[in-house]
């Protein structure tokens, strides 16, 4: 084959062209970095996997838990090899930064860090003055629930006897005088008490379900018969003997609750403060929500 070798400067020019090519620069730099980092990592044990006696014991314990006996020597060798393979893949993955995009790993680390942060600052026990100021600012949230004391007459309602039951209730209501203080015998036996003292709306929901009776009780007139109101079980005639609106409770009575709430809030604040301090080291940029 004949080449045109008249141009003596040809190979040199080609060489110079290649040298000027950015892609080649990139590749060269990559090779240098790869060689350097390989040496560096080798020198720093990244390519050294030590299988300790403790590791082997752990592998055996896992096996025992699964199969109930120690692995035979051949099996154990395979398990150790599998462990080594796993460790290699783990390190290679780490080196390639695979953990960075993994939601499971991310959440696990968030959890661990959050635990570390929590409990760093345990708030000192607050003085009574501090608690009182806290209470004064939130007295309404320490008010007692509204309460009623009442007696009732019950009329069982089963599927198909709804109207009949209501009519019975209305007929009995007609005959009840304001002075009749209680009259459970005029109705059916109720599967709970006939008379209740200091009944709250939470008590009412618990016993009567989410029914008209559970709310009507708290709007019923005091000192006379009212109804019938429907509960989960049937119709009720009600005579409220006393009703008490929710009202503020003195500090002394709720001090324990106040202290608990204060400590809880102080703990939350401390955690938030701690997180804020760390957050201050970060810059957050991005689109507005």
């Amino acid at each position: 084959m004949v080449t045109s070798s008249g141009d003596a400067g040809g190979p040199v020019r080609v060489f110079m062209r290649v040298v000027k090519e950015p892609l080649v620069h990139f590749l060269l730099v990559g090779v240098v970095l790869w060689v350097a980092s390989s040496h560096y990592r080798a020198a720093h044990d990244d390519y050294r996997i030590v299988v300790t006696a403790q590791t082997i014991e752990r592998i055996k314990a896992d096996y025992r838990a699964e199969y109930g006996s120690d692995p035979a020597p051949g099996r154990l060798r395979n398990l150790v090899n599998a462990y080594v393979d796993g460790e290699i893949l783990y390190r290679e993955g780490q080196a390639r930064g695979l953990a960075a995009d993994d939601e499971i790993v991310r959440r696990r680390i968030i959890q661990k860090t959050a635990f570390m942060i929590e409990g760093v600052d345990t708030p000192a026990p607050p003085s009574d003055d501090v608690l009182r100021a806290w209470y004064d600012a939130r007295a309404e949230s320490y008010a007692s629930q509204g309460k009623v004391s009442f007696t009732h007459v019950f009329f069982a309602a089963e599927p198909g006897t709804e109207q009949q039951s209501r009519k019975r209730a209305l007929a009995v209501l007609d005959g009840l005088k304001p002075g009749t203080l209680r009259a459970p015998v005029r109705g059916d036996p109720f599967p709970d008490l006939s008379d209740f003292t200091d009944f709250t709306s939470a008590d009412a929901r618990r016993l009567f379900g989410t029914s008209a009776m559970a709310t009507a009780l708290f709007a019923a007139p005091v000192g006379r018969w009212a109804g019938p109101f429907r509960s989960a079980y049937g119709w009720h005639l009600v005579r409220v003997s006393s009703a008490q609106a929710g009202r503020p409770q003195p500090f002394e009575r709720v001090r324990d609750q106040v202290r608990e709430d204060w400590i809880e809030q102080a703990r939350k604040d401390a955690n938030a403060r701690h997180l804020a301090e760390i957050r201050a080291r970060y810059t957050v940029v991005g689109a507005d929500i």
Partner: protein
Amino acid sequence: MMIDTRMSALAALAGLAACSQPVPPETPPPAIQAQRASPPVTAAPETRRAYFGELHLHTGYSFDAYALMGSRADPDAAYRFGRGEAVTYLGDTVRRSRPLDFMAVTDHSEYLGSFMRIDKEPQGGLAQSKGGKLMASNPLAAALGQLVSVLSGDEPTSAAMDDAMASAWKYEVDTANRYNQPGKFTTFVAYEWTTMQEGKYNLHRNVIFADEGPAAPFTATDSRRPEDLWDFLDAQRAMGIEGLAIPHNSNASGGLMFDWKKSDGRPIDEAYAQQRALNEPLVEVYQHKGQSETSPLLSPEDDFADFERSEALLTGGKGEVNGSFTRQALGRGLVLEKKLGANPFAFGFVGSSDFHNGLSDSAESAYAGNGLNSTDPQVNLPDKAFARQILSQKVDPTGAGAPAANMNRPTDPEALRHTAALLNWSSAGLTGVWAEENTRPAIYAALRRRETFATSGTQLRLRMFGGWNLPGGMMQQAGWVARAYRMGVPMGADLPLRREGNPAPTLLLEAAKDPIGANLDRLQVIKIWLDGEDYKEKVFDVVWSSERQRDPRTGKVPAVKNTVDLATAKYENSVGATMLRALWQDPEFDPAVPAVYYARALEIPTPRWPTLLAVARGLPLPEGIAPTLQERGISSPIWYTPGKGS
């Protein structure tokens, strides 16, 4: 099952640790504590009302919950959730559908609080010890039992672990006491004693204390024999610390829970019978790993026995129905009573969750098959992909041959959170008690006298009295409950002494529906009586909703209509009854034959949790498992023994 799989290995190895761990010196009797008892209950018995509670719940203080299931809720959060407050859970705000009346957190006493301590105090003594480093680097292996070998050989780990457990116990006790609000919300100092015989037979007990707890719990590391636990409880009682033990998951005990034998293999004797009856007045029959009332294999004539079955061992593999179910145990108790003069199986019934995420909710919708158990259906229902995984599992509807869940279990807590529970597992059960007030003394006394009922999670109310010569029409009158207490005995008791010439005993039965739940199908009496060296059982339909009549040819009451629409997972209270009430006299009574009776109330069919989940996520219903169930409650029994009586 996930937990207990691990626990088995742990407990199997825990026996080893017992040899090597130093035994703490006996605490001197706390004389002052005994004086601190709350005031006694003085109200009349007819003022007793039904209160609902949870007596079996784990938090992140349980080693399995924390290390193996990724649970981070602590007892504080558990109590707050139980009393109806919103709590933050895995970044969501969740709330119980309605508050509980009483509650006990029962974390596993073994390694109590240790795993959480490692994460919370990475510079602490435990975290820096050999065992602590193992726990941090490989919690699964550590919890599986390798810790035991480290504990026995490594002094710093062992000491740091003792320290961690002591402070965790103090925290558990303090937290229970802090949340106890007499009249509003009752809590009990409690824990779970976690023993697995031969690494697979579940003999776990929850230990509940009346008021103050002991200086330290008696753990499975101290001993794996139930008799030793009772010795401990007897010794505590002598020092003024009253407590009782409640066995659970007898369905997975391989026949050991109600065996004829003691744990040393010898036949049960009188002393054993008395000690067990004193320390174990209750058994948990409903919880999320299956019911322990009976099996169709033991009760083939019972049309309703095929319910929430989980009859495999918790470690996988076939179980043994004989010796594993409470109805049979009541029968065996009669046999033993005749032979020994004492009945080791004279127990009442409770139900609970055994959930491991610290959140107890017994609603069917609050169980969605996730590995952590309780869910707030409004907030953290499994997403569609996870729901599909849960619902596409293969099912053995008897639960008899089911493999242990997650034999190829993941080790990552996040992955564990996305581990499906078996489709034949259940939503949580619940305990009902009849008590004068919502306080520790009143509720504990109800537990002690067995005036309790267990439900499969519903808040139906069930009550039973027994007596002689009770007048026929008495239940039609308001105030019948006061008369019933005067003339008879409540559930959990022995019938009064029978006088010569008395007719057959009468039972007064009353069931009221859950005020926000389904109507009732029927109310039954289950009778078990002595038959030579064996027992017999029979189910009587006593009263049922009015739209049906007993078939005169078969003597059976037809099934109630199933109103569930499987496309919408909704049911209608257009059938069934809101209340069922009846006086029943035993038609087959023989005064010479010992017998025991309990009541069972069934609800009309409602959608089971996989149906709710499938509909919520727009997925097909799972195959091979009933789409609906009849939730139920059973009362504690009433016993008749010739020549004896209360």
